[in-house]
């Protein structure tokens, strides 16, 4: 399992390196406005082809770029019902606090668990390679966090059940 993680992350890192070439671009549709083109999709010539990187059937990453913004959507591995619930709750917790993360999107794209929106303003304020490191690190940490949460739920369940059933001995 771990053997496919490295190439998956390297592939995402290289794709992000190429995709994160963003520049300030004023809106063509509305005067005096500056909008992330990847969200608007109003001018097809300003969008690049989206890239879908799949690790297996349940884990994938969609990277959509445009001239001034980039959207990364992740689908995290969910093996059973418990992981499904844990992932949903954990990622919803993070997404609700999207302001603190700056690059996080408040709602994930349809069909994915979590999305990032990086604009040219983020690239101006922060360094590009650090942003990419953050995203890749996030992906690694998510898997660890969900496993830890699952283990702690199972442990707690076992403890509670043991205590409860002691009264029947």
């Amino acid at each position, binding site marked *: 399992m*771990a*053997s496919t*993680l*490295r190439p998956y*992350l*390297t592939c995402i*890192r290289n794709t992000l*390196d*190429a995709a994160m*070439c963003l*520049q*300030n*671009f*004023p*809106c*063509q549709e509305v*005067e*005096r406005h*500056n909008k992330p083109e990847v969200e608007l999709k109003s*001018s097809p*010539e*300003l969008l*690049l082809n989206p890239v879908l990187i799949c690790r297996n059937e349940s884990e994938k990453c969609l990277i959509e770029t445009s*001239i001034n913004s980039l959207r990364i959507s992740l689908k995290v591995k969910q093996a059973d019902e418990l992981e499904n619930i844990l992932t949903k709750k954990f990622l919803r917790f993070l997404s609700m606090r999207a302001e603190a993360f700056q690059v996080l999107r408040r709602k994930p794209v349809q069909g994915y668990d979590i999305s990032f929106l990086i604009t040219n303003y983020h*690239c*101006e*304020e922060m*360094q*590009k*390679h650090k942003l*990419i*490191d953050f995203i*890749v*690190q996030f992906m*690694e940490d998510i898997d660890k966090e969900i496993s830890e949460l699952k283990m702690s739920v199972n442990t707690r369940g076992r403890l509670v059940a043991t205590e409860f059933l002691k009264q029947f001995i």
Partner: protein
Amino acid sequence: MAVTAVHQLAQCITCHAWSADRSMVALCPNNSEVHIYRLVEDKWEKMHVLQKHDQLISGIDWSARSNKIVTASHDRNSYVWNLERSEWVPTLVILRLNRAALCVQWSPKENKFAVGSGAKTVCICYYEQENNWWVSKLIRKRHDSSVTCVSWHPDNILVASTSTDGKCRIFSTFIKGVDAKDPKNESRFGELIVQLDLSPSWTFGVKWSPSGNTLAYVGHNSVIYFVDDVGPSPLAQNVVFRDLPLRDVLFVSEKMVIGVGYDCIPMVFAADERGIWSFIRYLGERKAVSSGSRYGSQFSEAFGKFYGQAKQGGSNDASETSRTRGVVHENCINSIIPLSRQGTQIRRFSTTGLDGKLVMWDLETEQDLLELLVH
């Protein structure tokens, strides 16, 4: 080293322009103002702040002989600034644009300037003596998307423009009363001379060579296009390079071009005797790329391999150094302006980038490039 000076003038610089004697530089620090700095005894002093625009200033150009600054901004306006006594006085130019202005350049004779806009048009502005104001004429048709960059041919009539629809177009901007009539060149205003459809992706940074014979522009697909003998039967070449795309180019001689962009380091391209262009090298590259691992020694890298892949983040791995290539600039370089000219060759130039640094380069120290230049 090719770098002669590095100055941190702002947090982020959008564009810059030098005065004729190269003692003052006008730049936009990513807001709606223009800051003019003068080099006083090794320190940069902010001499003037030009505040008239409402939104980000996307282009500044400083004319050499008439000492006027033209600025174009995302608020659809453009101002021509004249130095009167010691104040810069703005004159509004009615561009008649309904979208942002993206780039601006004075013509070689400085009687006209061209503005590319998000309204898919190019405006050519000239000074009308009778009414004492700047008038604009729009080249309305032909463009399918925003015009990202404009460049004047040395003959003061032709203008090349690149756009986000991937095409480079050359127009004639002959204006009766402003330009002298040329019997060889009977063209109307706004006439499309050549349309170059070489790039599948957005195009930026178009420039003419000093003689006007060759045109160079970059595409976002990491290709730089060179077009020789621009006219009815142009000869186009493209040079694909390995890394990230470029944003702007500069002809330092008839046969050498420096490109700058997302790699944060200038790239040198040159044409050999047969006229075939190719990539020569980077200017001032960092020597050992893999030694820049943030956690230091090879010891920790070896440990990382021992513990298996699911250990620390990507920065420990020798193959994954996602660091910038550039030694000097830390973020994308977005413009390159010549500093000194010797005949038709440029030995010194300056670059500014999103990291807010103004870096001055000198080719005198690069022996191998000098030999190619002299050709």
